[in-house]
Each structure stands twice: as structure tokens, then as C-alpha cells.
């Protein structure tokens, strides 16, 4: 079904959000061509950041325009500093920092959507901020569906 994914992303006039297979190796050129923003989720430890960095390189090869990192499960100011320092050193722009949040684990344990379990949880607040930023920059680029 992978070849169909590219056609779906290409042809959809509504906003598309694709949850990719883990690791970018499966992201085909056919799909990447139609993606305007790739968000790479990384955690604040060295191995995860190294993986994110490799994904950035791959995304660049595939020609994706906007590639950003989401620093997830950030527990302490020190975590955040180290992620930001790594990101700056390796030229990986950060879209947002999502704090570590017990609500994520608790929602999962209950089999619930995070946004329903903790609509005001800190992680959800960070994702709301990310959505605002994405919508603003999309509007600046010419709106929904624009290339």
C-alpha cells in the first residue's frame, strides 16, 4: 500500500498528518515529494539525538522542504539545554520541546487518547503551541494545500 500513500498525500485537499513507520528508511521518494513538513521526534539522550540527526540527513536527501525536530520527554532544564545545544551544533531546527508528562503514560495505560485523558496536560499544551506555529507558517506560505 506504500505507493498509494504518496497519491493520498498528493491528492488530499485537507490537511494530512502521516504517522510514519519508525525510522525513515521506509519513506519513499514518491511520498516525500508531497510532504511539506517533516517532524522528527527525538528524546533528550545522545543515541536518540544521533538517530534524529541521521533522519535529518536522509530527509534532506529526499528533498523535503521543512524538517524540524520535536524534542520529546524533556524532564529537566538540563535536558532541554543539552537538546538545544546538540541541535544548534548539528543544525537541526527545533519545532517544539514537549515536556515529559505522566499523563502520556497514564492515558496509554487506560487505552485513552492523551487529549481526552489530559486536555490541559503540559504535553498537550506543547502540542497546541506546535499546531499554532504550523498553522501560522502554513498561512504565511500561502495557506492550506499550498506548495
Amino acid at each position, binding site marked *: 500500500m506504500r505507493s498509494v500513500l504518496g497519491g493520498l498525500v498528493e491528492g488530499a485537499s485537507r490537511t494530512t498528518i502521516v504517522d*510514519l513507520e519508525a525510522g525513515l528508511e521506509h519513506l519513499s521518494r514518491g511520498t516525500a515529494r508531497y510532504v511539506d513538513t517533516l517532524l*522528527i521526534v527525538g528524546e533528550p539522550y545522545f543515541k536518540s539525538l544521533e538517530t534524529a540527526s541521521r533522519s535529518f540527513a536522509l530527509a534532506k536527501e529526499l528533498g523535503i522542504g521543512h524538517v524540524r525536530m520535536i524534542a520529546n520527554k524533556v524532564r529537566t532544564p538540563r535536558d532541554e539545554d543539552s537538546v538545544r545545544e546538540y541541535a544548534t551544533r548539528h543544525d537541526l531546527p527545533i519545532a517544539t520541546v514537549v515536556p515529559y508528562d505522566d499523563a502520556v503514560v497514564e492515558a496509554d495505560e487506560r487505552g485513552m487518547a492523551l487529549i481526552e485523558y489530559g486536555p490541559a496536560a503540559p504535553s498537550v499544551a506543547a502540542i497546541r503551541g506546535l499546531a499554532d506555529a504550523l498553522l501560522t507558517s502554513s498561512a504565511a506560505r500561502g495557506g*492550506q494545500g499550498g506548495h
Partner: protein
Amino acid sequence: MKIAIGGKGGAGKTTIAGTLARVIAEHGQPVVAIDDDSNPNLALTVGVDRNAASTLDGIPRDMLTERTDPDGSKHLVLAVPAEDFIDRFGVAVRDRLTLLVMGGPNHGGSG
């Protein structure tokens, strides 16, 4: 907007993808959340019963057509407009938000 979310397994990409889809739909934009992971869990994070979200593995073949690339490789492409396809095979999660699950654990595994 055409957004893709990647990352290592366990990094939290599915939770972020599902929540982001919900939030953007709340902003008034129609959204399709597409689960391309071979271990599909996006249904849970957008807030729909996983069992309600069947995969595309069993879709009627007349929805797809085979295309041959200039290099001779063949692959399946949509035979109908993407929006029609999403309306027909997507699961309505709530207002303005539709979920599409590409495939189950075996999808893509055999080539």
C-alpha cells in the same frame, strides 16, 4: 499542510501525531490522520476504538490501478481521487477529523 511525523519507535511520534491531528481539527481545519506504521496505534491517540479502524489491506481492487514507471517497475496507485478515497475508507473520528490506517503488521513486509 502535508505533515509527516517520524522518529524511533518509542520516541512518542504516534502520541504526538494523534494529538496534533486533534488539535488542528479543533482549529477548524479538515484533517486526515494517516497511520503508515506497521504496528498501527494512531487510532488510540486520535481517540477512536482500534477495532473500528480497519486497515486498507482488504480494499476493493477497483479502487487501485497498476502503474508502470519509466524504469519498468510496477506499483499500485489510486484509481479514484484521493478525497473520495479518504471519504470512503477513512473512519470518521469526530468533526473534521478522519483516520486512515494503511496496513496491519504484515503490510509492506513481503515487498
